[in-house]
């Protein structure tokens, strides 16, 4: 298992070396291997397909520009997701911060004030929307850690490497993120039945 992982890592490293020399095929191979992972991260952060695709494109463009900075022996996935994370944050600050500031102020109750006309109303979609809005209310770091843990299924150690913070800090922030989500959602939990 360990050998298999090491072989995989060596293969990825050799592809990155080829990209450094301008090998288009190697670049496309790496893109195919990691594009969905980057998309998952971006989508769970923004919940918008177009934004997520922009992030993926920008991430691989930046990878190509900074390929010479990749250190052999390090995890390529973590390095790539670190770039994706930075792009997500920059993108968020540039395009979404103002909207989400307004959303934060908006009461979640306002969303549920409109009477349900259809009998086929799906409570889970309400819960999904409530959860989505509660997620936005988390701090940047807590949201990123939660998204990486829940949707990218990364281990705490991998998240620590991507975010360049201590392992204990990751665990602590994840705990806080989940607890805050619980606090934010608790008034609406009983209603959903």
């Amino acid at each position, binding site marked *: 298992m360990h050998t298999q992982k090491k072989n995989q890592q060596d293969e990825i490293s050799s592809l990155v070396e080829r990209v450094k020399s301008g090998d*288009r095929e190697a670049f496309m191979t790496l*893109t*195919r291997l990691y594009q969905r992972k980057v*998309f998952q991260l971006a*989508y769970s952060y923004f919940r918008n397909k177009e934004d997520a695709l922009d992030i993926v494109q920008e991430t691989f463009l930046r990878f*190509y520009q900074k390929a010479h900075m990749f250190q052999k022996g390090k995890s390529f996935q973590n390095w790539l997701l670190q770039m994706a994370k930075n792009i997500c944050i920059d993108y968020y600050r540039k395009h979404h911060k103002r909207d989400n500031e307004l959303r934060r102020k908006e009461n979640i109750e306002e969303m549920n004030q409109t009477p349900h006309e259809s009998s086929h109303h799906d409570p889970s979609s309400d819960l*999904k929307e409530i959860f*989505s809005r509660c997620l936005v209310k988390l701090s940047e770091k807590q949201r990123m850690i939660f998204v990486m843990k829940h949707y990218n299924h990364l281990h705490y150690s991998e998240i620590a490497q991507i975010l360049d913070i201590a392992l204990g800090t990751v665990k602590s922030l994840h705990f806080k993120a*989940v607890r805050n989500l*619980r606090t934010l959602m608790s008034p609406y939990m009983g209603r959903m039945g």
Partner: protein
Amino acid sequence: MVAFLYDELNEFDKKQVEAHLETCQKCKAELLELKEVYEAADLLNAEMEKAIESVDWKNFPTRISDGIFDKEPSRKRQPRRAGLWPFLFQPRFRLAYAGLLLGMIVGAVVTFLIFQSPPLQVADDGRIIAPQGFYDMMELEMARRDTIDYLDKSEYLLLDFVQSSPEKSVVFWQSDFASQRTKDLLSKKRYIDQQLDKIKLAKAKVICDQIELLFFELMQISDELSAEELEKIQFLIQERQLLLKIKLIRKELQKNEV
């Protein structure tokens, strides 16, 4: 509890928590609430899967690489060469080297401006004010020219003496013309003595002293001095190569014009 929910605990800790949950209602309730959050978060998974499936991932890498590689079709990245010289001559250091060169030029100019002799200034009353260095240079040049003049005249006089026959040289030295010339030269020698000491023209001083002694002797020539004795004096002048030494010293002084 969160670590337990996300299966981040090792086997031992996991069993500990499970055992605790069987007895602690409060922790059990907390875990249930966390599970609800977990399940609510899972609701987004389906939406995300739908979004992922809607993307043409097969052609996506081509789309991205077209945007990158078509912008720079012919340029292939050169691998970085190792070594000190390639490192030193990297393009990113151009600015540093340009700054260094500029600094050296500016430093040289500033040094020149600081240490060069200041120019002559004209005072309000029309007098020319010059720095001390200027006067020193003038003095040296005047001493040099005076010495050259003394040597020239001495040479002519000695040539006249040496090239004449002993009988004629007696007549020559006893004439008023030669006598006057000799006196003038001895007087000039006294004048340039101070300058020769001050400005340390040591070699020139030695020759000038020898010439002076010779002239003193020649001044003493009387009617009783025989042609033989005169011939000896001529021979001494030639033996000491006095005329050659005069030529050499004069040449050196002319070369060192200030």
